[in-house]
């Protein structure tokens, strides 16, 4: 069950993970993108931290909304509206259900709708889609997350900047997939389970 507590803890850990891997994410974004994904995400999680700090006794909806707004207004680039939309959809849904599986499902739908990417296009969708599925079969784990992130390596990009490279995008991990991997890993570390 997603709670305010869990969400806050999750975002703290996500901040730390992004902070630690900022350079690495930008590095992943260099051969097949424009080298800024780490910087973009760092601005985002900093905004999230500040946004959450301003809230007094928020409910889950307000918490998720604050995260969404921070991501939308701080990240920019392609990943900003996608991560922002994901949390906005979760905020919309969370009064109805707090099950991670259902919330991540609407988040994924939001990402797909906003960006138009399908599975196999070498984007963050290739982490979100298989991970959402792991909730149904009970296999949600760091191992599955890593596998999903790794799976983008052999794909040819069809959305985002990496798509301009065509075949030459093969052989590189997708940076947005990596940061999505961190998002799910820190969800586990914060105590989130299915």
């Amino acid at each position, binding site marked *: 069950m997603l709670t305010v507590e869990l969400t806050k803890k999750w975002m703290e850990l996500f901040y730390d993970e992004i902070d630690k891997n900022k350079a690495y994410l930008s590095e992943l974004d260099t051969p097949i993108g424009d080298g800024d994904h780490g910087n973009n995400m760092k601005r985002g999680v900093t905004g999230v931290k500040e946004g959450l700090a301003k809230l007094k006794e928020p409910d889950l909806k307000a918490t998720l909304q604050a995260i969404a707004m921070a991501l939308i207004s701080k990240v920019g680039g392609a990943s900003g*509206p996608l991560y922002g939309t994901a949390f906005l959809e979760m905020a919309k849904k969370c009064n109805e259900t707090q099950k991670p599986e259902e919330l991540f499902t609407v988040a994924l739908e939001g990402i797909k709708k906003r960006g138009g990417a399908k599975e196999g296009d070498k984007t963050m969708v290739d982490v979100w889609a298989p991970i959402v599925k792991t909730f149904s079969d009970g296999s949600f784990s760091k191992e599955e997350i890593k596998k999903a992130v790794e799976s983008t390596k052999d794909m040819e990009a069809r*959305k985002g900047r990496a798509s301009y490279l*065509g075949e030459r995008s093969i052989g590189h991990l997708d940076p947005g997939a990596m940061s999505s991997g961190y998002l799910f890993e820190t969800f586990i570390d914060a105590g989130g389970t299915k």
Partner: protein
Amino acid sequence: MKKIINSPQDVVPEMVDGLVRSYPEYLERIPDTEAVVRSDKASMKGKVGIVSGGGSGHEPAHAGFVGKGMLSAAVCGQVFTSPTPDQIYKAIQAVDQGKGVFLVIKNYSGDVMNFEMAKDMADVDGIKVKSIIVDDDIAVENSLYTQGKRGVAGTVIMHKLVGAAADQGASLDELEELAKNALPHISTLAVALSAATVPEVGKPGFELADDEIEYGVGIHSEPGYRREKIKTSKKLVGELITKLDEQQHLDPEKQYAVLVNGMGATPLMEQYIFSHDVLDKLAEKKIKPAFMKVGNYMTSIDMAGISLTIFELTDKKWLEYLNYSVETVGW
């Protein structure tokens, strides 16, 4: 990285401030944003607003094209990063005069998504918003299943067209039609001698050897389609025009506008030599451009390189729009 900056994080706000304060007769900052609007508000009265923008690092694009006869406002994102929807939305609000607002967007996932989110926000306000997604870079194959072609220097041509038409009172629908009609006739291709260094990254987006060039690079150091030993200007021009010709089917019976665009670190000396070769090559095809411009318009920070845009003028009005007088820093 050797740059005249203070700190990589402060590049965008300081740059926007520097620009706006240097040219108060043209520009003003929209409070609490990194968006820039015309200071001559009277020039916008009763007209459709034109808003563009994108990542920073393309100076004078986009803020340098804000002014009477061209853009109404421009939104400056982080370096090579699309601006966020809240900022774009504020720019839309700042220029709307009840006639609607037209957005000129470059075809990058980020730009498209952020501008679309801003459009959604403006919808709620009841502001009519239409847009064009510019994708003039022929280095990338177009396809329904991918992101498609990128938006590069041809975007400046689009700014000029819709800016001039809006200044002459065109409606939002007319601007959309103009933009849609002109778009397929604008094609660009670039060649790089070195990649750009994003201040926060600190090293070039890719490395080229001392004698290497790369054809087809994007304006964010996206790699191109072929790398080879440096050639003479004539041969570079030959390659670019051949590819542009395949796209546009250059025809002596038709009229063309040409934009030669320096990428930031390429001196005008080289741009003029390149232009000389472009004109020679076109003359071989019995084409003499009806309009031409050479200089730094859509740059890629400190990239050394050049892009060539050819715009087929199928409508007589378009040449008038290109020649229409403007009051901007950058055109």
